[in-house]
């Protein structure tokens, strides 16, 4: 199991367009990735490929999230997704 910590950079948090961009990126990796707030129980982690789950998570700008995945390609997928999370998609 690999893990990464990332801080939400988008001004509006993980809502709307930033959430859509992240979901698409998660689907593109082809790897099962979960996302949760750091400190939340592991079994409460959400499916990163679900825009509705991400919206329900409602992470705000500056919040720390933990991404988890396992198996082949896990590290590569997580690195790519950290980058997406740490980009401010609301900056015009």
């Amino acid at each position, binding site marked *: 199991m690999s893990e990464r910590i990332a801080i939400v950079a988008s001004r509006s948090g993980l809502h*709307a367009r930033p959430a859509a961009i992240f979901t*698409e990126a998660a689907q593109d990796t082809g790897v099962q990735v979960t996302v949760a707030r750091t400190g939340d129980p592991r079994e409460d982690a959400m499916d990163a490929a679900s825009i*509705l789950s991400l*919206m*329900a998570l409602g992470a705000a700008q500056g919040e720390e999230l933990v991404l988890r995945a396992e198996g082949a390609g896990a590290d590569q997928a997580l690195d790519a997704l950290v980058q997406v999370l740490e980009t401010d998609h609301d900056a015009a």
Partner: protein
Amino acid sequence: MLEASSTFPSNGSADAPRRTPYMGVGVVPGRVLAPVRQMTAAVQEPPFPGGSPAQGTLESQSQRIKDAAKAVQADLRSRAATASGEAKNILSATALMATDPMLVTSAIKLLSSPDGARTPERAVWEAGSGVAEMLSGLGGYMAERVSDILDVRARIVCELRGEPAPGIPYSEQPFILVAEDLAPADTATLDPRKVLALVTASGGPQSHTAILARALGLPAVVAAPGVQEIPDGQPVYVDGAVGIVNSSPGEEQQRAAESWAASASSLKAFSGSGRTADGFSVPLLANVGSAADAALAAVACAEGVGLLRTEFCFLNRDTEPTIADQVEAYGGVFEAFPGRKVVVRTLDAGADKPLPFLSNLDEPNPALGVRGYRAHAGFPGVLERQLQAIATAAASHTAEVWVMAPMISTAEEAAEFASLCLGLGLATPGVMVEVPSAALTASSVLGEVDFASIGTNDLTQYAMAADRQLGSLAALNDPWQPAVLQLVRLTVEGAAAAGAADGKPKSVGVCGEAAADPALAVVLVGLGITTLSMSARALGPVSAVLSSVTVAQARELAAVALRAPTAAAARSAVRSALPLLSELGL
């Protein structure tokens, strides 16, 4: 007792009632002849338990749900590819929701739920409700996405049933769109290259449909009962000036549509100087809601901005924008009008535009609640920061910046607002006159400020006690109502008295949609209104009609309108004295 289904009239049956021509309320002038496309009706809830025994294995039913979700996603993606701006973002995000594991997995689970097997349609319906409930429980921005998930749900159910998707139909050929009413969400997907005119059975002159039609310059008729019985593909003639929809057009209508098409382009042009026939200047200004709008208004030769709606930099946000963000946003508008007047309306949150940081969402009657300037007492600081941002932006541009507060009801409120503005270096404070009390006490209210701008949409709604969103009250919600014209007159008279007492004239403009009605614009000028502010698209038609009358004639027509016992009588008396209107198809 009859079965419910037999009580629905079958669409297009030979003996269906034909009430042609259908009469409605014209909201945007224009004469168009084209085939009709009906907005697809809302999806009916699939019954539980399913009407017929479930077909196929659990596995094949799960697959049907997945396939339908994918088909809906593909359709939304292809529409996103041809859309732009905000519409593209909405469509892309909605496309992702269609195949979302949360929605699809919970639908599949419901197929074999222990409390009863669902059909795939019913399962998707309930799963969508569950997600919608979850989103609305989160409140704020999430709750606004409820309509998106319900739209996706409806699309998947239609796909499963093999029915056309709900919403605005897709057609290669341009058409006249007919609907019960349009929701704000529909407007994101309306393609003005395909839709030539809008006709709705309900909705009033201030409905979302009407506002959209004015913004896009689409001829439109609202509140025309019966139009939903017109079959798809039927050519109809729409006259958006008089509010007629004719489903058996003849040669006369054909010619009228052709001549409108020929003259419409010349009517669009505005010289940049609003004047009566005898050269009396009536500056024609634009209503704008963003820097992009302002740039378009400048291209359309507007003489300034009579109403800058500042909500654009506050909407879709959970928190208040910073002062720096606001300075940038307002500066973008000021930049488009160097040396010209720009009237900024401070934040008008509440009622139909709630903001999470500035609205009390559980008011039983939000139109009469804490909205506009009234929010200042409960949320101190927001208005000061906005005024500070306006002053900062004004300092680095040459635009002549005036500021006004919405929903002012008393002279005390006007005085408070003026002292806030002056304290922050904004030299020209004013008020919106939307509440009848402000019109009735205009001499005291205007004694505290430099100008007033009459918001006829709200003034009409409050004077007539008629919700502006309700199509069934469209006849009351008419700015030609004698009571509304009297309130305009009283505001002008009060301003004159206040101006005489202060030794400086107080200007009274109109920035409601009444100013965009060329006939009513003439009446307003006759009543003593000094500036008119409207959608940039109305500048051409209003200036054309205004330049055909002298001030004396405008005053005479104002007197005619004031004497009329009803709105309809006022409108028809004034229109018949302005033959240019029907010549131009206005």
